[in-house]
């Protein structure tokens, strides 16, 4: 298990692993936004959480199509699935390593990107917390999409279309929780806890579903 986890991290960090692709895409979205909005700092701070979450959501989708496709192309997927390890556990570990390599850098980049969007320190802290808790759910939902499109060449776009509707609740609760932290009457904890629940729920359901789909895909 540990061997697979470490191998995934190593592959992500190696040439072509795309560890920085997500962060750079995230940066591109966040950096052009102030130019599009104009010199209204209040408006920028107001829409900052939404921009951060949208950027992080789209950036999380970027590398997902390669999650299982690369394994299938070099024949590793067959061997990985033949062993005495449940496919759901295989998916869970791969998705977790994928999140650490691609999702965690997005969270760590938030303090810098939050400054670009004129967000308050509390807003930046809340953004980091909600993204850290919420983006794993996107990866686990994405794993199902990646498993479904594993045999399709250039399945990345189809994957995004398939899973984007499923990630909308995560986006809604993520942004709501940040507004809850920065604006007084709105509560922070309820949407944040729902976000936690969504991640826990999809870490199980996504792994099971993707594992089952992968097992069928070896034909």
């Amino acid at each position, binding site marked *: 298990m540990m061997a697979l986890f470490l191998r995934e991290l190593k592959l992500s960090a190696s040439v072509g*692993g795309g560890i920085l692709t997500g962060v750079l895409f995230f940066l591109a979205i966040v950096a052009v936004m102030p130019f599009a909005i104009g010199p209204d700092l209040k408006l920028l701070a107001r829409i900052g959480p939404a921009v951060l979450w949208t950027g992080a959501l789209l950036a999380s989708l970027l590398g997902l199509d390669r999650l299982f496709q690369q394994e299938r192309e*070099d024949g590793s997927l067959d061997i990985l699935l033949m062993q005495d390890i449940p496919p759901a556990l295989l998916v869970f570990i791969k998705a977790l390593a994928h999140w650490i390599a691609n999702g965690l850098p997005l969270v760590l980049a938030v303090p810098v990107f939050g400054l670009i969007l004129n967000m308050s320190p509390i807003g930046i802290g809340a953004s980091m917390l909600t993204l850290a808790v919420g983006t794993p759910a996107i990866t686990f939902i994405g794993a199902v999409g990646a498993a479904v499109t594993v045999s399709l060449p250039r399945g990345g776009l189809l994957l995004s279309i398939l899973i984007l509707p499923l990630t909308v609740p995560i986006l809604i609760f993520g942004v709501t929780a940040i507004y809850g932290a920065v604006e007084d009457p709105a509560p922070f904890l309820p949407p944040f806890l729902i976000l936690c629940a969504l991640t826990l729920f999809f870490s199980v359901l996504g792994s099971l579903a993707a594992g089952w789909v992968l097992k069928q895909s070896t034909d």
Partner: protein
Amino acid sequence: MNLTAENLSAIRGEQTIFSNVSFSLKSGDLLLVTGTNGSGKSTLLRVIAGLLHTFSGKIELSGDDQPIQHQCHYLGHQNVLKPTMSVEENLDFWRKYCGSPDDEIEIALEKVGLAGVQDIPAGYLSAGQKRRIAIARLLVTKRTLWLVDEPTAALDAKSEKMFADILQTHLEKGGIAIAATHQPLGIKTAQKLDMDAHQADFPLEKGEFL
């Protein structure tokens, strides 16, 4: 330990690839699967490896409670190597992931005639060398049943002989092997299965241009 297959048939899409394949192998036996291109050699191996679900018939590996899938090595057309990882990292991963370790990596590499390449990224190796690393993967973990699909593709005559020796050793240790190949592999006691004799009873009718 015995491997028995009864009346195996496999379907891909709507086409029956082969039908009524039966054989029985005991410890130390090698089955050479031959046949023309497209006769279903690789498909047969994938059925036995549990990677193709649309089949009928029965496969049984007696002598152990584990499913066949967990007891076999499958060497397909691809070499299962990550080009950016070194040879040692590649083999070490499979050794740890698959469990029941056998040969040390250095010893396995020596057996395939590639001692000293462990630190080189797998992507830098030639096609024949990659194939030999793929064969070394069979040596680093212990499995009773070897399913090898064109194992000597891209190998030179000397390496073919080397593979035959490795296979012979595996059989002498009580293993079973099924090889889909056009090469005789130089093992005289091998049983033969000609897939051309098991073609579907009702082949699809060929399309016609009018």
